[in-house]
């Protein structure tokens, strides 16, 4: 473990148990979604994550999701996207193309546990921060890369975004409406998986290091992680029983689907083509009878054909119509409550805009309000790995270059004069350089 960090010092002062990852220092060279999503999970548990951007290499999300209807002093600090996934981190802006900028990274690597990056394969080596270089400085360091495919040619040279990787990783083939083509996810699904994989790889290598005393290099391929999410389909193919696209239905029980619902009371109509959607699953024969009762459809309950899952699968289209006829008269929350009372899995489809009003998330204190220099206040999500007995606080994401001075002085022992000189030379910045 590294030197004392503010997290350990605070915990010791308060007499509380140190946070689960207190004392772990991470150099974070990632940007956009995948990497920052992963290092957020580490930072939430008390790891000291130092996010490093460059004067001319700002995290691309800093220019996204800035509300157009407001004036900002520093718009590059106002991105909603950036603020969510970079909270709890320290932020530096260093020109790593300059020798003194490179030196800072190498000095940090000497006193850090982890370096994580998501450059295109090969870039990290060209910058001089490859594992082979860094292990010379610090044999305990763990270096994690999260490429889209792998570092092998030819695929190493192909740029790839979430939907590309989902296609190449086989998930897109299995996603889709019953009667439709392959389908991409609504989010760039490979990104959070890669971030999660990166975080888990860091933790696995840290555990390994407890025994071996040395670090290692780990490559976490987004595409390979996706393959791990469809392993049953890959096995099924080899068993001669291939799986196809099954829309919203289950392959095991029936009926299951998405059904239109009425507008909730007082709704302003933020949803698109239907006022609301409800999902329903009938997993057991008993739930089928309960559903018929809830819908007041004795005729369906009495139909022996429908008493078993085989019959209900055969009649799925007709059952979908019957369920939709019932749900469209009810608001999704009301219908879900009634079905849950009857022991049937059902739930409203929540759009992102619905989540702040979700009773369960609110009751569980899932939303945190943080002070923010541009907004006054900003809301982010709570840590999702809820370690019992630890107070997992959330700190606002760093302003661009906010912790340049603090990190250099506290961790590397630079003097004020050293830092002033680096600022004058443009090695450090607190505003993005116009390109």
């Amino acid at each position: 473990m590294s030197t004392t960090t503010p997290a350990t010092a605070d915990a010791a002062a308060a007499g509380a148990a140190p946070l689960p990852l207190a004392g772990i220092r991470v150099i974070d060279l990632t940007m956009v979604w995948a990497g920052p999503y992963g290092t957020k999970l580490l930072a939430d548990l008390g790891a000291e994550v130092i996010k490093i951007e460059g004067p001319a290499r700002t995290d691309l999300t800093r220019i996204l999701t800035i509300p157009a209807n407001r004036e900002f002093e520093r718009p590059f600090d106002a991105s909603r996207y950036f603020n969510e996934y970079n909270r709890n981190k320290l932020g530096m802006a260093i020109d790593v193309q300059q020798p003194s900028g490179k030196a800072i990274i190498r000095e940090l690597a000497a006193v850090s546990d982890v370096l994580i990056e998501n450059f295109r394969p090969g870039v990290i080596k060209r910058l001089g921060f490859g594992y082979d270089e860094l292990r010379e400085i610090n044999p305990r360091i763990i270096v994690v890369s999260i490429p889209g495919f792998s570092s092998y040619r030819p695929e190493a040279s192909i740029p790839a975004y979430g939907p590309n990787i989902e296609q190449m990783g086989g998930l897109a083939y299995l996603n889709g409406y019953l009667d439709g083509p392959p389908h991409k996810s609504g989010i760039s699904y490979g990104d959070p998986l890669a971030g999660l994989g990166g975080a888990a790889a860091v933790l696995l290598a840290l555990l390994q290091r407890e025994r071996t005393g040395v670090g290692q290099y780990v490559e976490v391929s987004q595409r390979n992680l996706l393959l791990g999410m469809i392993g049953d389909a890959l096995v099924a193919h080899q068993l001669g029983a291939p799986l196809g696209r099954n829309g919203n239905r289950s392959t095991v029980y029936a009926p299951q689907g998405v059904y239109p619902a009425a507008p909730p009371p007082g709704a302003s109509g933020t949803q698109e083509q239907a006022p609301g959607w409800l999902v329903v699953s009938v997993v057991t024969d008993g739930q089928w009878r309960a559903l018929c009762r809830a819908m007041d459809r004795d005729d369906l309950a009495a139909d022996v054909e429908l008493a078993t899952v085989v019959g209900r699968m055969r009649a799925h289209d007709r059952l979908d119509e019957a369920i939709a006829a019932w749900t469209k008269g009810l608001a999704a929350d009301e219908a879900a409550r009634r079905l849950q009372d009857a022991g049937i899995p059902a739930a409203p489809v929540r759009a992102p805009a619905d989540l702040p009003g979700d009773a369960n998330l609110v009751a569980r204190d899932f939303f945190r309000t943080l002070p923010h220099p541009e907004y006054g206040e900003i809301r982010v999500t709570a840590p999702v790995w809820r370690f019992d007995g630890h107070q997992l606080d959330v700190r606002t994401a760093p302003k661009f270059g906010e912790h340049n001075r603090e990190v250099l002085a506290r961790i590397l022992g630079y003097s004020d004069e050293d830092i002033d000189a680096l600022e004058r030379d443009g090695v450090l910045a607190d505003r993005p350089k116009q390109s």
Partner: protein
Amino acid sequence: MPDYPLRGFRVIEVATGEAVALAARVMAGYGAEVIKVEPPGGDPSRGVGPFPHESVGPETGAAWHFFHGGKKSVVLDLTEAAGRQVVQALAGQAQLLLTDVPAAERDTLGLAREQLRAASPALSVISVTPYGEQGPYAGWSASEITEFAVGGQMSLMGDPDREPLKAFHNQAECQASLHVLGAALAALLAARTGAGQYVEISVQEVQASTLEAQGPMALNGDELPAGLLRMGNGGRATWGQFQCKDGYVGCFVNVMNLPSFFRAIGHPELLERAGDEEFIRGECYKIVAEWCAARTKKEVYDAAVEFGAPLSYVAEPADILANPDIARTGIWRTVPHPVAGWVRVPGPPFRSDGLPFDLTAAPGLGQHTAAMLGDLLGLAAGDVQLIAGQSGSAARNAATTSPAGGRA
């Protein structure tokens, strides 16, 4: 013997969902001893399939075979006092217990927080449930579609003029499996001080914290533009899925890749019109669609390689299994299957020379009951009383003995 990173860790799995199953499978591959506790009737995934032709059985289905490779199966009836005593005795010999049993049932099954702490203060527990252990929906029933619906991701998936679309099988649980894995590893690290950790994960929160730009915007009351709502497969020349000769391909291009993309499709001159949205959705869309329709998946991929453009194809299982680039990363492990002989499965999620990974086949029902109870709890063979007079391997191998004599 390879230096497995989780060598020496014992993990107890008391769960039926993919979130725990996949996380525990990865831990088994990395060298942990994973004991899957099954009820006498077997884990539900044994009945899921798909199954090889005319070979339906508890060990032959694809789901069982994939999700539970590398584990040991111990059959315990946790509705009986003896079963609860045994599971707690096993927990006392383990570093980690992973469970998705509904919070309301934990107490009666001997899995409540206090009961597990009493079993071993050094034991860490990862508890994953659809809505969390507490909260107004904690008691709600859940399924693969409700778990995907309540956190926001499903509302963003599908065509804009149709109902929202669920991802393949239970992706909400698969996604959560990496959270279970990460939290478990963090707990093992934190528990080096001797104190076991208790970590609670809600699948709804996993989903709701994973909404790209849309989540952070909506959380702060910003209106989402139409392009950030459900948008099908893209629908733009530079962000869309297209039919090709033998399937489907994708052009998902960001600003910096526009030059390579237009070179790849043989129209570098179109670059200067890339900012014209009407053109991108209209005339240019037709040009790209025609280019794709005239090519095979392989030809499109070759263009991606040649020009360094973000083009891709919709890989089917057969494509994936035959892809030499994927094989070169070392992801495959070959494991025996009771009917098919040998099958390849995705192995290590991470590539490192320092992280060896191996898997055995998914276990038979109760295959390790007698051995585990004997080895770990010191029960003599005669003490492991087997249920008599019931048919099937489950009953044959289910232990009902009291472990009282076996605790050290």
